[in-house]
């Protein structure tokens, strides 16, 4: 493949419940520090969730913060951090050649709920419904806020893809670069979901909301006593560039997106389909031109639902074999499920492994589910390994959407 078609990650801005930049996030993953706590939410009281504590005023004025949404604020923080991290000469970069592609699980729930909550005190008189509601809830809103903040005039939109969205933001950015639609992609995903009570209530009523006396232990993928999802917010935006452009400006390269795949289960609204997950991983491997044996680390999607974790384990075993040596971990055990951000955020937390050869662990496994046993599932302590060349990142979502991204260590 020529260097015009090879797409590399040259910068990252992120915020997660346990870190507001890559160094802090990575350090907290390796030291086993959870970012999950408790929050108060409308109608439900105290719930377990993961919130970020970045300073929104670092890149936004107070008025913009008041006008926009939490997802927009997260996106603005991540986009600015990514650009700084990339060391691009952003000032002189042609802003019409920058595209913003952000994965979202949902958007608008928070803002709509808040308005309904507000007009309740006025006996549901819609004269008190905010005129800001429409710009806050259009589906492109988080990406659009980034354009307003940074003066970017290229294309911007979000990609609604449930919890597969973070990966899909990256995949779409790669595709737009290959099509020469843009010269720089700000790609990834964002989530403001903990600020909507509805998602908590729905997960609770379907028996999929995590509960635990200690919040930091609530997110426990692969543990026999897992009982559901911890809803979290977060964001991760990467600067993606053609390898040719990155080399020309001597950019730092975190990794090269070697392969990807997106497919659909076409089988159920919420239940996962291990056959389609397996097909998606196989397609991504084919796209990367490598075999399962070439993958060193799998960052699993597992959200700590009983059925979801089992389905993914089954799919991985189908692709990699029961006796595979691949190292397997899970990031949600630390930060909960950051929804639209999860794919990009969890992938980014693993990319430093190319350099330090350490695989971060999965925490909160006290009693491993026999259906989730792998030879090299990294449990509770990080592990140093000999080499890391390829990382596979799973992200799956409701309505049966699967996404897989494979990133390889950059070599000329």
């Amino acid at each position, binding site marked *: 493949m020529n260097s015009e078609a090879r797409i590399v990650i040259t910068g990252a801005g992120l915020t997660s419940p346990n870190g507001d930049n890559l160094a802090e996030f990575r350090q907290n993953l390796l030291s086993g520090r959870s970012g999950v706590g408790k929050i108060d939410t409308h109608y439900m009281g105290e719930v377990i969730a993961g919130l970020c504590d970045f300073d929104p005023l670092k890149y936004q*004025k*107070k*008025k913009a913060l*008041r*006008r926009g949404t939490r997802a927009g604020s997260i996106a603005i923080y991540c986009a600015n951090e990514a650009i700084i991290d990339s060391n691009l000469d952003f000032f002189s970069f042609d802003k019409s050649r920058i595209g913003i592609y952000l994965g979202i699980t949902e958007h608008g729930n928070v803002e709509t709920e808040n308005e309904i909550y507000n007009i309740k005190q*006025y006996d549901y008189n819609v*004269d*008190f419904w*905010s*005129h*800001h509601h429409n710009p806050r809830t259009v589906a492109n809103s988080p990406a659009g806020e980034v354009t307003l903040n940074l003066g970017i005039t290229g294309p911007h939109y979000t990609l609604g893809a449930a919890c597969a969205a973070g990966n899909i933001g990256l995949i779409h950015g790669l595709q737009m670069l290959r099509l020469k639609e843009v010269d720089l992609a700000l790609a990834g995903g964002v989530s403001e979901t903990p600020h909507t009570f509805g998602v908590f209530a729905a997960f609770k009523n379907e028996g999929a909301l995590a509960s635990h006396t200690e919040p930091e232990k609530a997110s426990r993928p692969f543990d026999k006593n897992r009982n559901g999802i911890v809803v979290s917010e977060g964001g991760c935006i990467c600067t993606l560039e053609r390898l040719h452009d990155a080399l020309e400006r001597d950019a730092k390269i975190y990794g090269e997106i070697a392969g990807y795949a997106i497919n659909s289960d076409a089988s159920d609204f919420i239940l996962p389909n291990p056959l389609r997950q397996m097909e998606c991983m196989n397609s991504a491997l084919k796209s990367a031109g490598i075999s399962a044996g070439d993958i060193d680390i799998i960052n699993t999607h597992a959200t700590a639902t009983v059925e979801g974790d089992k389905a993914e384990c089954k799919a991985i075993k189908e692709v990699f074999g029961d006796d595979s040596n691949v190292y397997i971990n899970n990031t949600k055990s630390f930060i909960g499920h950051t929804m639209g951000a999860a794919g990009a955020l969890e992938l980014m937390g693993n990319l430093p492994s190319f350099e330090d050869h350490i695989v971060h662990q999965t925490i909160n496994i006290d009693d491993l589910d026999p259906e989730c046993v792998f030879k090299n599932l990294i449990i509770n302590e990080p592990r140093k390994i000999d080499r890391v060349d390829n990382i596979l990142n799973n992200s799956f979502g409701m309505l049966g959407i699967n996404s897989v991204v494979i990133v390889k260590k950059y070599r000329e």
Partner: protein
Amino acid sequence: MTGEEIRSMILEVIQEILPDEDVSNLKPDIRIRDQVEMDSMDFLDIIMELRKRYGIIVPEDDYMKLFTLDSSVAYLEPLMKEI
């Protein structure tokens, strides 16, 4: 409310809507939007605050009467004298 109380209330509302601006030195007889960075959505925030705080409904035809501090006070004084 007296005229001065209304003036003070309007300034408080504008400060809340424009938290990055210093509105304490707004000239009373010049259009507010010519003195601070205020767009039409911000202006509608003032209308909404009057509705929420005091139940005052400003018809769209009267919006221009709220363009300066002085005109706002003059317009609102009779509407708010019992408040």
